[in-house]
């Protein structure tokens, strides 16, 4: 074993940092943006929705832990699937994951806008955003262009930042996450103490009409909130002792996130009521905070402003994270020859995966025109599908490579990945059915993206075949670099 040289980049993130990266992605925008939307569908049962999503995600988390510990590649789900599946399947995995991240970017940008308006309102700079819930609805309304513009500018700004300079390190992410969690702890603390909460009414738990069935579509919508641990597996190379710390970080971050979500949602539903939360839409948590936080404080004037600031800060940092994550998927695909080679190249002047970032930006900017709920639904749909593939990958890897060294193995295998596949597929089916009824546009766009992927795959295949046979030797591989 070598002693003089360590692997690169230097392993400098500890268990805490890795956990915080996962939590940072999960306790990002989702909690602020999606709580209101979930209450709209499921009423007070939004609490149940987040709890169940945590359970569903945990099964796939086990699969991620096994893959991340045994396949030393920093690339997240796509890298693992690429290791195991043939060209077409791994291409589709990357293609879907790429889209899921881009749409998540649009979702966070759309969540940023109303929260930013709420922040301005708290300081009395704009009139009360009574129309906040309506902002993302594409009807003719004065508020629509403002929010759209804000979301557009936010995406543009962060894309420009990431295109010309390399991103902030993992330790900055740790500080961001601690700030976010502290703000939420303050929120939960004041919420439980507030007189509004003591009269909290969680009955009826399920909304009229649909009853308990309403939980399922709401789970589909909010599933994206728990996708964040994929991000831990994209920085694995920088984590010390990854074969122990990565699985631990995945479970710790997931558990902590579920606890935080449940407390926050309980307080929000308890104080504002499910109906009030639903009315506030993307600014649900911010509005709840404004209603019970103390006022007249020095400097920040209003306790609610702190939470609103947290919402603005979270949506922006989450947006930044998915700009990086989406471009990284496209970059890996370019490196593997699954997208045009230029996607897998570092820009000679900026030192960033420039083409991958720009391509991601185009889709993100286009998606900002979507209603928030459609963006959430589409992103969730694609994460569900890619999680199904990740679970299948674990099972296939066990069968095809039984002798592969696995520092972490899933307990009670094969039950967890099978249950994961089943639950993700059930949610996918529910979500598709729900979209058929309520949002055919989102479903059509999703199908369109998959169709476009098919076209791109065939096109790239045509581009390749004249110059190289499928079993390329080192020499022919180098020749094809010249195209």
């Amino acid at each position, binding site marked *: *074993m*070598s002693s*003089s*040289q360590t*692997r*690169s*980049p*230097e392993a400098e993130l500890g268990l805490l940092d890795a956990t915080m990266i996962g939590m940072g992605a999960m306790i990002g925008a989702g909690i602020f943006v999606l709580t209101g939307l979930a209450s709209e569908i499921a009423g007070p049962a939004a609490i149940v929705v987040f709890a169940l999503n945590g359970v569903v995600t945990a099964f796939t988390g086990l699969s991620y832990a096994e893959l991340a510990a*045994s*396949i*030393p*590649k920093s690339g997240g789900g796509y890298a693992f699937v690429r*290791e195991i599946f043939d060209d077409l399947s791994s291409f589709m995995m990357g293609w879907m994951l790429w889209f899921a991240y881009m749409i998540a970017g649009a979702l966070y940008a759309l969540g940023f806008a109303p929260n930013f308006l709420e922040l301005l309102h708290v300081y009395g700079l704009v009139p009360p955003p009574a129309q906040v819930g309506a902002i993302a609805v594409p009807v003719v309304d004065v508020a629509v262009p403002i929010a759209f513009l804000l979301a557009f500018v936010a995406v543009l700004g962060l894309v420009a930042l990431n295109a010309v300079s390399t991103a902030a390190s993992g330790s900055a992410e740790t500080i961001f996450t601690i700030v976010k969690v502290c703000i939420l702890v303050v929120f939960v603390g004041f919420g439980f103490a507030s007189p509004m909460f003591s009269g909290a009414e969680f009955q009826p738990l399920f909304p009229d009409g649909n009853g308990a069935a309403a939980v399922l579509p709401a789970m589909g919508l909010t599933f994206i909130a728990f996708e964040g641990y994929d991000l831990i597996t994209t920085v*694995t*190379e920088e984590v010390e*002792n*990854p*074969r122990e710390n990565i699985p631990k970080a995945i479970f710790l971050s997931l558990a902590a996130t579920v606890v935080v979500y449940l407390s926050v949602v309980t307080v929000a539903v308890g104080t504002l009521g499910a109906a009030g939360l639903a009315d506030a839409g993307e600014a649900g948590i911010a509005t709840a905070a404004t209603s019970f936080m103390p006022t007249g404080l020095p400097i920040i004037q209003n306790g609610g402003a702190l939470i609103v600031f947290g919402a603005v800060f979270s949506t922006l940092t989450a947006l930044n994270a998915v700009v990086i994550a989406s471009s990284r998927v496209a970059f890996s695909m*370019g*490196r*593997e*020859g699954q997208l045009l*080679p230029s996607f*897998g*190249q*570092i*820009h*000679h*002047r*900026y*030192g960033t995966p420039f083409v991958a970032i720009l391509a991601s930006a185009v889709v993100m900017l286009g998606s900002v025109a979507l209603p928030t709920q459609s963006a959430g639904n589409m992103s969730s749909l694609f994460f569900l599908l890619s999680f199904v593939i990740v679970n299948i990958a674990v099972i296939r890897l066990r069968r*095809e*490579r*039984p*002798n*592969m*060294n696995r*520092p972490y193995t899933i307990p009670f295998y094969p039950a967890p990945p099978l249950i994961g596949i089943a639950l993700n597929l059930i949610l996918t089916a529910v979500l598709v059915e729900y979209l058929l009824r309520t949002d055919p546009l989102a479903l059509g766009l999703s199908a369109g993206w998959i169709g476009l992927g098919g076209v791109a795959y065939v096109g790239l295949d045509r581009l*390749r075949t004249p110059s190289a046979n499928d*079993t*390329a*030797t*080192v*020499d022919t*591989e*180098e020749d*094809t*670099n*010249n*195209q």
Partner: protein
Amino acid sequence: MTSNLNIIIAGGGRVGFRTAEILADRGHDVTIIERDERTVSNIADEWTATVIEGDATDPDIIEQAGIERADAIAALTGVSGLNLAVCLAAAELAPGIRTVARIDSAVGDAYTRFVDAVLSPERAGARLAANEILGSDVQTLADVTGTLDIMLVRVAEGAPAAGKQLTDVRFPAGTLIVSDDDGQRIARSDTTLSPGRRYVVAVEPDVAEEVMNLMRG
């Protein structure tokens, strides 16, 4: 289509592991086949390569290492005959794969009838093995003290830095382009990185992959 390759290394001992490390630093995907359980566990701690535990002459084990997608296989265990067998089996399973065998003693050259490249451990350490696996476009010139690599790198057509002047390219800190075209003079800021030409490059291991991306695409 890109220059990052899938490489299998049979034998995760000192030479095998060091080779894997260098290759992984340059952005290649490495799978190690190793029989000894304790060595497997040590490699896993370093998290450099996927490890298949088993006998590298077993066709089933070679297949588990992903032979059908591999660009090259290097048999680097301490046993010459075993290494030769691994390469022959691999070539049988995946015709066209580049094979590199570690062969002890002076008879090494005769084996090039069976494998693409031979190296002998007396003079060739892990750095040389990496060179052989990658072919002639990227070559390590010297095993300098410490961890620094000095390499001869051919700029690939279409690479991000191809055709650009040095002043226009942001190489990561820890990189030094030493020579002008084909080593005629020392590089200056107006030196152009012409595709097809070779340049002497000094690089720290943790930025090697990025430098390779810029110069090789």
